Protein backbone atom coordinates (compact mmCIF):
# COMPACT_ATOMS: atom_id res chain seq x y z
CA UNK A 1 0.00 0.00 0.00
CA UNK A 2 2.66 2.43 1.11
CA UNK A 3 4.86 1.08 -1.65
CA UNK A 4 2.10 1.72 -4.20
CA UNK A 5 1.78 5.31 -3.11
CA UNK A 6 5.40 6.29 -2.55
CA UNK A 7 7.55 4.18 -4.87
CA UNK A 8 5.40 2.55 -7.52
CA UNK A 9 4.78 5.77 -9.48
CA UNK A 10 8.51 6.04 -10.08
CA UNK A 11 9.14 2.38 -10.92
CA UNK A 12 6.17 2.18 -13.24
CA UNK A 13 6.35 5.44 -15.16
CA UNK A 14 9.40 6.76 -16.93
CA UNK A 15 8.10 10.34 -16.92
CA UNK A 16 7.98 10.24 -13.12
CA UNK A 17 11.59 9.01 -12.95
CA UNK A 18 12.67 11.83 -15.28
CA UNK A 19 10.76 14.34 -13.20
CA UNK A 20 12.47 13.10 -10.04
CA UNK A 21 15.89 13.30 -11.69
CA UNK A 22 15.13 16.86 -12.79
CA UNK A 23 14.03 17.87 -9.32
CA UNK A 24 17.18 16.42 -7.73
CA UNK A 25 19.37 18.32 -10.20
CA UNK A 26 17.43 21.52 -9.55
CA UNK A 27 17.78 21.07 -5.80
CA UNK A 28 21.56 20.50 -5.99
CA UNK A 29 22.10 23.71 -7.94
CA UNK A 30 19.35 25.88 -6.54
CA UNK A 31 19.75 25.02 -2.85
CA UNK A 32 23.17 26.65 -2.31
CA UNK A 33 22.25 29.58 -4.57
CA UNK A 34 19.14 30.17 -2.49
CA UNK A 35 21.14 30.15 0.76
CA UNK A 36 23.47 32.82 -0.60
CA UNK A 37 20.53 34.85 -1.92
CA UNK A 38 19.01 34.79 1.56
CA UNK A 39 22.24 35.60 3.42
CA UNK A 40 23.01 38.45 1.04
CA UNK A 41 19.46 39.78 1.56
CA UNK A 42 18.71 39.24 -2.09
CA UNK A 43 15.74 36.88 -1.82
CA UNK A 44 13.49 39.24 -3.73
CA UNK A 45 16.25 39.77 -6.28
CA UNK A 46 15.65 36.19 -7.33
CA UNK A 47 12.00 36.99 -7.86
CA UNK A 48 12.81 40.12 -9.85
CA UNK A 49 15.25 38.16 -11.99
CA UNK A 50 12.49 35.67 -12.75
CA UNK A 51 10.44 38.54 -14.18
CA UNK A 52 13.44 39.76 -16.13
CA UNK A 53 13.82 36.36 -17.79
CA UNK A 54 10.20 36.13 -18.91
CA UNK A 55 10.39 38.47 -21.94
CA UNK A 56 13.58 36.80 -23.18
CA UNK A 57 11.86 33.45 -23.04
CA UNK A 58 8.80 34.90 -24.75
CA UNK A 59 10.92 36.23 -27.60
CA UNK A 60 12.56 32.84 -27.97
CA UNK A 61 9.10 31.29 -28.07
CA UNK A 62 7.92 33.79 -30.74
CA UNK A 63 10.93 33.16 -32.93
CA UNK A 64 11.00 29.41 -32.90
CA UNK A 65 7.91 28.06 -31.18
CA UNK A 66 8.02 25.68 -28.28
CA UNK A 67 11.74 25.13 -28.57
CA UNK A 68 13.28 24.89 -25.13
CA UNK A 69 16.74 25.72 -26.41
CA UNK A 70 15.59 28.99 -28.00
CA UNK A 71 13.57 29.90 -24.92
CA UNK A 72 16.47 29.13 -22.62
CA UNK A 73 18.86 31.18 -24.72
CA UNK A 74 16.43 34.09 -24.81
CA UNK A 75 15.92 33.87 -21.06
CA UNK A 76 19.64 33.68 -20.40
CA UNK A 77 20.36 36.71 -22.57
CA UNK A 78 17.63 38.79 -20.94
CA UNK A 79 18.58 37.65 -17.46
CA UNK A 80 22.31 38.20 -17.93
CA UNK A 81 21.74 41.62 -19.49
CA UNK A 82 19.58 42.75 -16.59
CA UNK A 83 21.83 41.20 -13.91
CA UNK A 84 25.05 42.60 -15.31
CA UNK A 85 23.68 46.06 -16.11
CA UNK A 86 22.05 46.34 -12.70
CA UNK A 87 25.17 45.06 -10.93
CA UNK A 88 27.44 47.38 -12.90
CA UNK A 89 25.31 50.46 -12.19
CA UNK A 90 25.06 49.59 -8.49
CA UNK A 91 28.81 49.15 -8.19
CA UNK A 92 29.86 52.25 -10.10
CA UNK A 93 27.27 54.74 -8.81
CA UNK A 94 25.45 55.61 -5.61
CA UNK A 95 22.44 53.57 -6.74
CA UNK A 96 21.70 50.62 -4.47
CA UNK A 97 21.46 47.15 -5.94
CA UNK A 98 17.71 46.71 -5.31
CA UNK A 99 16.66 49.98 -6.91
CA UNK A 100 19.01 49.47 -9.80
CA UNK A 101 17.68 45.97 -10.40
CA UNK A 102 14.07 47.14 -10.19
CA UNK A 103 14.60 49.69 -12.97
CA UNK A 104 16.30 47.21 -15.27
CA UNK A 105 13.86 44.37 -14.77
CA UNK A 106 10.93 46.71 -15.41
CA UNK A 107 12.67 47.86 -18.56
CA UNK A 108 13.14 44.25 -19.60
CA UNK A 109 9.53 43.38 -18.84
CA UNK A 110 8.24 46.39 -20.78
CA UNK A 111 10.43 45.54 -23.76
CA UNK A 112 9.20 41.97 -23.75
CA UNK A 113 5.54 42.94 -23.59
CA UNK A 114 6.07 45.49 -26.37
CA UNK A 115 7.68 42.91 -28.65
CA UNK A 116 4.96 40.37 -27.97
CA UNK A 117 2.13 42.82 -28.64
CA UNK A 118 3.72 44.21 -31.83
CA UNK A 119 4.15 40.69 -33.14
CA UNK A 120 0.48 40.26 -32.33
CA UNK A 121 0.47 36.47 -32.28
CA UNK A 122 -1.96 34.91 -29.89
CA UNK A 123 0.40 32.50 -28.24
CA UNK A 124 -0.01 30.12 -25.40
CA UNK A 125 2.62 31.08 -22.88
CA UNK A 126 1.11 28.91 -20.20
CA UNK A 127 3.92 26.42 -20.61
CA UNK A 128 6.51 29.09 -19.99
CA UNK A 129 4.58 30.53 -17.08
CA UNK A 130 3.96 27.29 -15.24
CA UNK A 131 6.42 24.81 -16.71
CA UNK A 132 5.86 21.12 -17.01
CA UNK A 133 8.11 18.87 -15.04
CA UNK A 134 6.21 15.79 -16.23
CA UNK A 135 7.28 16.37 -19.83
CA UNK A 136 11.05 16.15 -19.52
CA UNK A 137 12.71 14.85 -22.67
CA UNK A 138 16.36 13.81 -22.86
CA UNK A 139 17.81 17.14 -24.10
CA UNK A 140 15.94 19.11 -21.44
CA UNK A 141 17.09 16.79 -18.70
CA UNK A 142 20.67 17.03 -19.92
CA UNK A 143 20.49 20.83 -19.99
CA UNK A 144 19.21 20.88 -16.41
CA UNK A 145 21.91 18.49 -15.20
CA UNK A 146 24.64 20.40 -17.01
CA UNK A 147 23.46 23.71 -15.55
CA UNK A 148 23.43 22.24 -12.04
CA UNK A 149 26.96 20.94 -12.54
CA UNK A 150 28.19 24.31 -13.79
CA UNK A 151 26.53 25.97 -10.82
CA UNK A 152 28.30 23.78 -8.29
CA UNK A 153 31.70 24.12 -9.97
CA UNK A 154 31.52 27.91 -10.28
CA UNK A 155 30.18 28.23 -6.76
CA UNK A 156 33.15 26.24 -5.46
CA UNK A 157 35.52 28.71 -7.14
CA UNK A 158 33.83 31.87 -5.86
CA UNK A 159 32.74 30.48 -2.48
CA UNK A 160 35.34 32.21 -0.29
CA UNK A 161 35.15 35.67 -1.84
CA UNK A 162 31.37 35.39 -1.80
CA UNK A 163 31.29 34.56 1.91
CA UNK A 164 33.82 37.25 2.83
CA UNK A 165 32.03 39.82 0.70
CA UNK A 166 28.75 39.00 2.39
CA UNK A 167 30.12 39.40 5.89
CA UNK A 168 32.74 42.17 5.47
CA UNK A 169 32.80 43.75 2.00
CA UNK A 170 35.37 46.45 2.85
CA UNK A 171 37.85 43.82 4.01
CA UNK A 172 37.56 41.91 0.76
CA UNK A 173 38.06 45.12 -1.21
CA UNK A 174 41.31 45.77 0.60
CA UNK A 175 42.79 42.30 0.14
CA UNK A 176 41.50 41.22 -3.25
CA UNK A 177 39.87 42.37 -6.44
CA UNK A 178 37.74 39.23 -6.58
CA UNK A 179 34.67 40.90 -5.03
CA UNK A 180 33.03 42.41 -8.09
CA UNK A 181 33.72 39.49 -10.46
CA UNK A 182 32.44 36.95 -7.96
CA UNK A 183 29.30 38.97 -7.36
CA UNK A 184 28.62 39.16 -11.09
CA UNK A 185 29.32 35.43 -11.48
CA UNK A 186 26.92 34.78 -8.64
CA UNK A 187 24.19 36.82 -10.37
CA UNK A 188 24.87 34.80 -13.52
CA UNK A 189 24.41 31.59 -11.51
CA UNK A 190 21.09 32.94 -10.22
CA UNK A 191 19.95 33.46 -13.81
CA UNK A 192 21.13 30.01 -14.91
CA UNK A 193 19.23 28.36 -12.08
CA UNK A 194 16.08 30.36 -12.75
CA UNK A 195 16.12 29.36 -16.40
CA UNK A 196 16.77 25.82 -15.24
CA UNK A 197 13.78 26.01 -12.95
CA UNK A 198 11.37 27.47 -15.44
CA UNK A 199 11.54 24.42 -17.68
CA UNK A 200 10.30 22.42 -14.74
CA UNK A 201 8.31 24.81 -12.59
CA UNK A 202 7.67 27.78 -14.85
CA UNK A 203 9.04 31.32 -14.55
CA UNK A 204 6.73 32.24 -11.72
CA UNK A 205 7.61 29.35 -9.40
CA UNK A 206 11.22 28.66 -10.43
CA UNK A 207 12.53 30.88 -7.67
CA UNK A 208 10.51 28.89 -5.12
CA UNK A 209 12.84 25.90 -5.14
CA UNK A 210 15.72 28.24 -4.26
CA UNK A 211 14.20 30.54 -1.67
CA UNK A 212 11.93 28.23 0.34
CA UNK A 213 14.60 25.59 1.09
CA UNK A 214 17.00 28.37 2.13
CA UNK A 215 14.36 29.75 4.47
CA UNK A 216 13.83 26.27 5.92
CA UNK A 217 17.59 25.84 6.43
CA UNK A 218 17.85 29.09 8.41
CA UNK A 219 15.73 27.51 11.14
CA UNK A 220 17.83 24.38 11.56
CA UNK A 221 21.47 25.43 11.33
CA UNK A 222 23.73 28.19 12.60
CA UNK A 223 26.52 27.77 10.09
CA UNK A 224 26.55 28.17 6.37
CA UNK A 225 27.72 24.65 5.49
CA UNK A 226 24.89 23.14 7.49
CA UNK A 227 22.43 25.53 5.89
CA UNK A 228 23.48 24.55 2.39
CA UNK A 229 23.13 20.83 3.17
CA UNK A 230 19.72 21.28 4.76
CA UNK A 231 18.55 23.47 1.88
CA UNK A 232 19.52 20.84 -0.69
CA UNK A 233 17.95 17.99 1.27
CA UNK A 234 14.71 19.85 1.89
CA UNK A 235 14.52 20.87 -1.78
CA UNK A 236 14.90 17.22 -2.83
CA UNK A 237 12.34 16.18 -0.25
CA UNK A 238 9.85 18.83 -1.42
CA UNK A 239 10.40 17.76 -5.01
CA UNK A 240 9.81 14.11 -4.28
CA UNK A 241 6.78 14.66 -2.04
CA UNK A 242 5.35 17.20 -4.47
CA UNK A 243 5.61 14.73 -7.35
CA UNK A 244 3.88 12.04 -5.30
CA UNK A 245 1.18 14.51 -4.25
CA UNK A 246 0.57 15.60 -7.82
CA UNK A 247 0.50 11.96 -9.01
CA UNK A 248 -2.11 10.96 -6.43
CA UNK A 249 -4.26 14.09 -6.67
CA UNK A 250 -5.18 16.62 -9.29
CA UNK A 251 -2.73 19.28 -8.08
CA UNK A 252 -0.41 20.28 -10.96
CA UNK A 253 3.19 19.21 -10.36
CA UNK A 254 4.94 22.60 -10.15
CA UNK A 255 2.60 24.13 -7.57
CA UNK A 256 2.52 20.80 -5.67
CA UNK A 257 6.31 20.91 -5.19
CA UNK A 258 6.24 24.51 -3.98
CA UNK A 259 3.26 23.82 -1.70
CA UNK A 260 5.14 20.98 -0.02
CA UNK A 261 8.18 23.23 0.40
CA UNK A 262 5.93 25.92 1.89
CA UNK A 263 4.48 23.39 4.35
CA UNK A 264 8.02 22.43 5.41
CA UNK A 265 8.82 26.11 5.77
CA UNK A 266 5.83 26.78 8.00
CA UNK A 267 6.67 23.85 10.27
CA UNK A 268 10.31 25.06 10.41
CA UNK A 269 9.15 28.53 11.47
CA UNK A 270 7.12 26.88 14.22
CA UNK A 271 9.42 24.11 15.39
CA UNK A 272 12.90 24.97 14.04
CA UNK A 273 15.74 24.43 16.51
CA UNK A 274 17.38 27.78 15.66
CA UNK A 275 15.01 30.59 16.54
CA UNK A 276 11.79 28.70 15.82
CA UNK A 277 8.68 30.19 17.43
CA UNK A 278 8.10 27.17 19.66
CA UNK A 279 11.70 27.33 20.88
CA UNK A 280 11.29 31.02 21.64
CA UNK A 281 8.15 30.47 23.67
CA UNK A 282 9.60 27.62 25.72
CA UNK A 283 13.33 28.32 25.87
CA UNK A 284 14.01 26.28 29.02
CA UNK A 285 15.77 27.60 32.12
CA UNK A 286 18.61 30.04 31.58
CA UNK A 287 22.16 28.80 31.95
CA UNK A 288 24.75 29.57 34.58
CA UNK A 289 27.32 31.24 32.29
Amino acid at each position, binding site marked *: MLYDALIAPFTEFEFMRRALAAVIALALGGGPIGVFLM*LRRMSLVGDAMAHAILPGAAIGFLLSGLNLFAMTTGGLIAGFAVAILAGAVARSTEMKEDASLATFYLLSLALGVTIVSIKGTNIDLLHVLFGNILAMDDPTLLVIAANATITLLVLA*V*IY*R*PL*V*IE*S*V*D*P*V*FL*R*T*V*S*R*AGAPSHLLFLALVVINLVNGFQALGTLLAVGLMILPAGIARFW*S*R*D*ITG*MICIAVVSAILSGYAGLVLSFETKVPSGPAIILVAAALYVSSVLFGSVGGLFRQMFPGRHLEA
Partner: protein
Amino acid sequence: MTAQVKFRDVTLGYDRHPAVHHLDGEVVSGALLAVIGPNGAGKSTLFRGLVGILKPLAGSIVTGGLDARDIAYLPQTADIDRSFPISVYDFVGTGLWRSTGFFGGLGKGARDKIAHALAAVGLNGFENRPIGTLSGGQMQRMLFARVLLQDARLIVLDEPFNAIDARTSADLLDLVRRWHAEKRTVLAALHDMELVRSHFPEALLLARGPVAWGATAEVLTAENLLEARRMCEAFDDSAAACAVHDLPSRAA
Protein backbone atom coordinates in the same frame (compact mmCIF):
# COMPACT_ATOMS: atom_id res chain seq x y z
CA MET B 1 65.21 55.43 6.67
CA THR B 2 63.23 54.68 3.53
CA ALA B 3 59.77 56.08 3.00
CA GLN B 4 56.95 53.55 3.24
CA VAL B 5 54.24 56.00 2.18
CA LYS B 6 54.61 59.21 0.17
CA PHE B 7 51.77 61.68 -0.09
CA ARG B 8 52.44 63.83 -3.12
CA ASP B 9 50.25 66.94 -2.96
CA VAL B 10 47.31 64.63 -2.57
CA THR B 11 43.71 65.84 -2.45
CA LEU B 12 41.01 63.37 -1.52
CA GLY B 13 37.30 63.97 -1.30
CA TYR B 14 33.80 63.32 -2.45
CA ASP B 15 31.95 64.80 -5.39
CA ARG B 16 34.88 67.19 -6.13
CA HIS B 17 34.77 68.63 -2.59
CA PRO B 18 38.11 68.09 -0.89
CA ALA B 19 38.12 66.38 2.51
CA VAL B 20 41.91 66.17 2.58
CA HIS B 21 43.45 69.17 0.81
CA HIS B 22 46.96 69.26 -0.64
CA LEU B 23 48.77 66.93 1.72
CA ASP B 24 52.48 66.45 1.17
CA GLY B 25 54.78 64.30 3.19
CA GLU B 26 56.36 60.96 3.90
CA VAL B 27 55.84 58.22 6.44
CA VAL B 28 59.10 56.39 6.98
CA SER B 29 59.19 52.64 7.12
CA GLY B 30 58.59 51.43 10.67
CA ALA B 31 56.96 54.68 11.82
CA LEU B 32 54.26 54.77 14.48
CA LEU B 33 52.17 57.73 13.43
CA ALA B 34 49.07 59.11 15.13
CA VAL B 35 46.70 61.00 12.85
CA ILE B 36 44.67 63.45 14.89
CA GLY B 37 42.21 66.22 14.20
CA PRO B 38 38.60 67.19 14.84
CA ASN B 39 35.67 65.22 13.43
CA GLY B 40 35.43 65.86 9.71
CA ALA B 41 39.12 66.69 9.46
CA GLY B 42 39.67 64.04 6.79
CA LYS B 43 41.35 61.31 8.84
CA SER B 44 39.14 58.49 7.59
CA THR B 45 39.21 59.88 4.06
CA LEU B 46 43.00 59.93 4.15
CA PHE B 47 43.03 56.28 5.23
CA ARG B 48 40.53 55.27 2.58
CA GLY B 49 42.78 56.85 0.00
CA LEU B 50 45.84 55.19 1.49
CA VAL B 51 44.39 51.67 1.32
CA GLY B 52 43.11 52.26 -2.20
CA ILE B 53 39.33 52.26 -1.83
CA LEU B 54 39.08 55.98 -2.65
CA LYS B 55 40.80 57.49 -5.67
CA PRO B 56 42.55 60.85 -5.13
CA LEU B 57 40.96 63.89 -6.76
CA ALA B 58 44.47 65.15 -7.43
CA GLY B 59 48.02 64.25 -6.58
CA SER B 60 49.02 60.73 -5.64
CA ILE B 61 49.78 58.37 -2.80
CA VAL B 62 52.76 56.08 -3.30
CA THR B 63 53.15 53.06 -1.08
CA GLY B 64 56.70 52.03 -1.92
CA GLY B 65 56.32 48.61 -3.51
CA LEU B 66 53.46 47.48 -1.30
CA ASP B 67 50.83 45.20 -2.76
CA ALA B 68 47.24 45.72 -1.57
CA ARG B 69 47.71 42.58 0.51
CA ASP B 70 50.63 44.13 2.40
CA ILE B 71 48.23 46.68 3.87
CA ALA B 72 45.92 45.82 6.76
CA TYR B 73 43.05 48.25 7.21
CA LEU B 74 40.67 48.48 10.14
CA PRO B 75 37.87 50.91 9.26
CA GLN B 76 36.21 53.13 11.83
CA THR B 77 32.84 51.49 11.56
CA ALA B 78 33.51 48.10 10.09
CA ASP B 79 30.70 47.38 7.67
CA ILE B 80 30.17 43.87 9.01
CA ASP B 81 26.97 41.88 8.62
CA ARG B 82 26.81 40.57 12.16
CA SER B 83 23.85 38.32 11.41
CA PHE B 84 25.92 36.33 8.92
CA PRO B 85 26.38 32.75 10.15
CA ILE B 86 30.15 32.62 10.48
CA SER B 87 32.16 31.63 13.54
CA VAL B 88 34.81 33.79 15.19
CA TYR B 89 37.41 31.21 14.13
CA ASP B 90 36.46 31.32 10.46
CA PHE B 91 36.15 35.09 10.48
CA VAL B 92 39.60 35.61 11.97
CA GLY B 93 40.91 32.98 9.55
CA THR B 94 40.03 35.23 6.61
CA GLY B 95 43.05 37.28 7.69
CA LEU B 96 45.16 34.52 6.15
CA TRP B 97 43.73 35.34 2.71
CA ARG B 98 47.22 36.28 1.54
CA SER B 99 48.49 32.72 1.96
CA THR B 100 45.30 30.73 1.42
CA GLY B 101 43.54 32.72 -1.34
CA PHE B 102 40.55 31.10 -3.03
CA PHE B 103 41.36 27.48 -2.40
CA GLY B 104 44.27 27.02 -0.05
CA GLY B 105 43.43 24.78 2.87
CA LEU B 106 44.16 25.60 6.49
CA GLY B 107 47.05 23.37 7.45
CA LYS B 108 48.42 22.80 10.93
CA GLY B 109 50.61 25.91 10.67
CA ALA B 110 47.65 28.08 9.73
CA ARG B 111 45.49 26.66 12.52
CA ASP B 112 48.27 27.38 15.01
CA LYS B 113 48.50 30.94 13.75
CA ILE B 114 44.77 31.45 14.21
CA ALA B 115 44.92 29.98 17.71
CA HIS B 116 47.83 32.30 18.58
CA ALA B 117 46.07 35.34 17.20
CA LEU B 118 42.93 34.56 19.19
CA ALA B 119 45.02 34.06 22.32
CA ALA B 120 46.91 37.31 21.70
CA VAL B 121 43.67 39.32 21.77
CA GLY B 122 42.24 37.31 24.67
CA LEU B 123 39.49 35.54 22.76
CA ASN B 124 40.34 31.95 23.69
CA GLY B 125 37.18 29.94 24.00
CA PHE B 126 35.27 32.10 21.52
CA GLU B 127 36.28 29.99 18.48
CA ASN B 128 32.86 28.53 17.74
CA ARG B 129 30.76 31.53 18.71
CA PRO B 130 28.85 33.16 15.83
CA ILE B 131 30.20 36.69 15.35
CA GLY B 132 26.75 38.14 16.03
CA THR B 133 27.02 37.16 19.72
CA LEU B 134 30.12 39.27 20.42
CA SER B 135 30.04 42.51 22.40
CA GLY B 136 31.52 45.71 20.95
CA GLY B 137 34.85 45.24 22.68
CA GLN B 138 35.07 41.56 21.77
CA MET B 139 34.29 42.50 18.17
CA GLN B 140 37.21 44.95 18.16
CA ARG B 141 39.47 42.28 19.67
CA MET B 142 38.41 39.91 16.90
CA LEU B 143 39.17 42.50 14.23
CA PHE B 144 42.63 43.05 15.75
CA ALA B 145 43.21 39.29 15.62
CA ARG B 146 42.48 39.38 11.91
CA VAL B 147 44.88 42.30 11.40
CA LEU B 148 47.45 40.23 13.29
CA LEU B 149 47.03 37.36 10.85
CA GLN B 150 47.26 39.62 7.83
CA ASP B 151 50.94 40.00 8.73
CA ALA B 152 51.03 43.31 6.84
CA ARG B 153 53.94 45.74 6.43
CA LEU B 154 51.58 48.70 6.70
CA ILE B 155 48.79 48.74 9.27
CA VAL B 156 46.09 51.41 9.13
CA LEU B 157 43.76 51.70 12.14
CA ASP B 158 40.86 54.16 12.00
CA GLU B 159 39.87 55.19 15.54
CA PRO B 160 40.54 51.71 16.90
CA PHE B 161 39.82 52.58 20.55
CA ASN B 162 36.45 54.26 20.16
CA ALA B 163 33.80 53.04 22.56
CA ILE B 164 36.25 50.51 23.98
CA ASP B 165 36.81 50.12 27.71
CA ALA B 166 40.16 50.84 29.37
CA ARG B 167 41.25 47.25 29.74
CA THR B 168 40.49 46.33 26.14
CA SER B 169 42.17 49.41 24.74
CA ALA B 170 45.25 48.74 26.91
CA ASP B 171 45.40 45.18 25.54
CA LEU B 172 44.98 46.35 21.98
CA LEU B 173 47.52 49.14 22.45
CA ASP B 174 50.03 46.48 23.50
CA LEU B 175 49.48 44.86 20.11
CA VAL B 176 50.07 48.18 18.36
CA ARG B 177 53.35 48.59 20.27
CA ARG B 178 54.31 45.04 19.35
CA TRP B 179 53.74 45.83 15.67
CA HIS B 180 55.93 48.89 16.07
CA ALA B 181 58.66 46.78 17.65
CA GLU B 182 58.42 44.42 14.70
CA LYS B 183 59.29 47.39 12.42
CA ARG B 184 55.88 47.50 10.79
CA THR B 185 54.53 50.89 9.76
CA VAL B 186 51.45 51.77 11.80
CA LEU B 187 49.07 54.68 11.22
CA ALA B 188 46.25 55.23 13.69
CA ALA B 189 43.54 57.89 13.82
CA LEU B 190 43.01 58.85 17.44
CA HIS B 191 41.18 61.34 19.64
CA ASP B 192 42.78 60.61 23.01
CA MET B 193 45.61 63.17 23.22
CA GLU B 194 47.08 61.64 26.38
CA LEU B 195 47.37 58.29 24.66
CA VAL B 196 49.01 59.91 21.64
CA ARG B 197 51.49 61.81 23.82
CA SER B 198 52.53 58.76 25.79
CA HIS B 199 52.68 56.11 23.05
CA PHE B 200 53.04 57.68 19.61
CA PRO B 201 56.39 59.23 18.72
CA GLU B 202 55.07 60.96 15.60
CA ALA B 203 51.83 62.79 14.91
CA LEU B 204 50.01 64.40 12.01
CA LEU B 205 47.46 67.04 12.92
CA LEU B 206 44.92 67.24 10.14
CA ALA B 207 42.19 69.79 9.58
CA ARG B 208 41.33 69.17 5.96
CA GLY B 209 44.80 70.53 5.19
CA PRO B 210 47.82 69.48 7.26
CA VAL B 211 48.26 71.77 10.30
CA ALA B 212 51.42 70.21 11.67
CA TRP B 213 53.36 67.00 11.17
CA GLY B 214 56.36 65.84 13.14
CA ALA B 215 57.43 64.79 16.61
CA THR B 216 54.34 64.45 18.79
CA ALA B 217 55.41 67.03 21.38
CA GLU B 218 55.92 69.67 18.69
CA VAL B 219 52.65 68.91 16.93
CA LEU B 220 50.40 68.84 19.98
CA THR B 221 50.83 72.45 21.00
CA ALA B 222 47.97 74.64 22.13
CA GLU B 223 48.31 76.92 19.08
CA ASN B 224 48.21 74.03 16.63
CA LEU B 225 45.17 72.45 18.28
CA LEU B 226 43.37 75.80 18.28
CA GLU B 227 44.09 76.28 14.62
CA ALA B 228 42.78 72.81 13.83
CA ARG B 229 39.60 73.60 15.71
CA ARG B 230 38.95 76.64 13.53
CA MET B 231 38.50 74.46 10.45
CA CYS B 232 35.14 74.85 8.78
CA GLU B 233 33.51 71.46 8.45
CA ALA B 234 30.83 72.09 5.88
CA PHE B 235 31.42 71.85 2.18
CA ASP B 236 30.75 75.06 0.30
CA ASP B 237 28.38 74.11 -2.51
CA SER B 238 29.27 77.17 -4.54
CA ALA B 239 33.03 76.81 -4.05
CA ALA B 240 35.11 77.68 -7.09
CA ALA B 241 37.65 75.27 -8.51
CA CYS B 242 40.79 75.11 -6.39
CA ALA B 243 43.21 77.81 -7.49
CA VAL B 244 46.37 76.04 -6.40
CA HIS B 245 47.77 74.85 -9.68
CA ASP B 246 48.21 71.18 -10.00
CA LEU B 247 51.72 70.24 -10.89
CA PRO B 248 51.99 69.12 -14.51
CA SER B 249 50.41 65.69 -14.67
CA ARG B 250 52.72 63.06 -13.28
CA ALA B 251 52.26 59.90 -15.22
CA ALA B 252 52.67 57.03 -12.81
